[in-house]
């Protein structure tokens, strides 16, 4: 599990140069980008859509989108991996919602199309220690809290949809969501200053 992450982390130093080469339309840079992040992107999309054939289409769309929008990415300050994963999640959730005949409810998902918003985000987000801490934190959540987070993150459900899905009052789901995110935030180590 951790091998691709460790690899991605080790290679993370070269992201800025890789971005510059992508911006110069160097096709070899695209191959490198895929080799660096392809497995993570595929794993995330497969988890969301649960179909390897559809996941392949969406991985392709993800990389095409990044290729077409990388020009507005800040090579030095931008966080390539987090942006790529956000675009991947966006594509997969979009697919899930359209396939299920559900309306998009989260306009903020569209922001992933604007890599400027990923400026100054921690680049070493794939650091295995931090990842382990978040996984530990996920394990520490109650089953209900974890379900809420998973339905929101991997299924793209709104709180109302989650409440219906779980057969619970909306207020309860909101409480679980807030408590779960607070735990994750604390474990994540970046406590937001007041």
């Amino acid at each position, binding site marked *: 599990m951790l091998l*691709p992450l460790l690899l991605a982390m080790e290679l993370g130093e070269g992201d800025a140069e890789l971005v510059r080469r992508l911006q110069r339309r160097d096709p070899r840079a695209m191959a490198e980008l*895929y080799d660096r992040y*392809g497995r993570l992107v595929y*794993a995330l999309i497969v988890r969301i859509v649960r179909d390897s054939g559809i996941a392949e289409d969406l991985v392709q*769309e993800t990389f095409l989108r990044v290729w077409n929008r990388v020009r507005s990415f800040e090579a030095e300050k931008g966080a390539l991996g987090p942006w790529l994963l*956000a675009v991947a999640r966006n594509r997969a959730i979009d697919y899930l919602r359209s396939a299920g005949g559900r309306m998009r409810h989260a306009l903020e998902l*569209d922001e992933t199309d604007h890599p400027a918003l990923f400026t100054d985000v921690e680049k070493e987000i794939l650091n295995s220690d931090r990842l382990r801490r*978040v*996984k530990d934190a996920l394990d520490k959540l109650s089953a209900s809290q974890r379900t809420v987070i998973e339905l929101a*993150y991997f299924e793209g459900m709104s709180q109302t949809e989650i409440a219906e899905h779980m057969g619970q009052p909306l207020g309860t789901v909101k409480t679980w969501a807030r408590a779960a995110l607070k735990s994750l935030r604390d474990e994540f180590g970046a406590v937001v200053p007041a």
Partner: protein
Amino acid sequence: MNCDELRDHYELYALGLAEEPESGEIRAHLGRDCLTCVPRMRRARELMSLLGAAAPPAQPPARLRQRVLAAVADQPARRWSWAPVWVAVAAAAVIAALFFNARERRADAELARVQAESATRAQELARLNEALAILNQPDARQVVFGAGAPQPPRGRVFLDPRRGVLLLASNLPPAPEGKAYEMWVIPKSGNPLPAGLFQSATDGTALHVLSGPVDVTATGAVAVTLEPAGGVPQPTSKPVIVAAL
């Protein structure tokens, strides 16, 4: 709403769970580059990335890499004159553009899918044309491998000094997940030269072409090994095919 009233809502927002009025308030704060909300939102996005990276591992099929690269190669060339300031302007304008973007994105996705399909077909046709060109050369050297062997695979290799090397094989089982077949042109003296990755079809047949001039007289053999899907500079496993010249 002030920033403190929003403090518990950044992760909800990044996750797509925030509701009105908090959602609109966060958008407004971000839209005016609020010095408190922008960094908080970055932390929330980091957390979302970690959730994504924590998805159970899955190995993409080897063909996906080729497909992604083919789709990118098929993209029309673009000019690169955007000034960095455009980035800031675009970020500020994003909220107004979201509605139209959603529509455009669906069209983009369809276009990308059609382009990828067309690129794959064009590649397949080009490969078959190359194979036919080699087969049509009267002076192409032909080598049979695997004949009479108790175990598959069997087939032929054609080498043409100007056109390249064509490998036709049967009884070659599909490579396991994460692996690909790699062809090698082995000089009479010196190390094997990588000659491209390929996959066999589900019926065990395979066709692989190495295009370009090849020094047939200096070649001792053509071989195939099973390697990691990304390919390796030198063989790391025992050959499954050896066609000695």
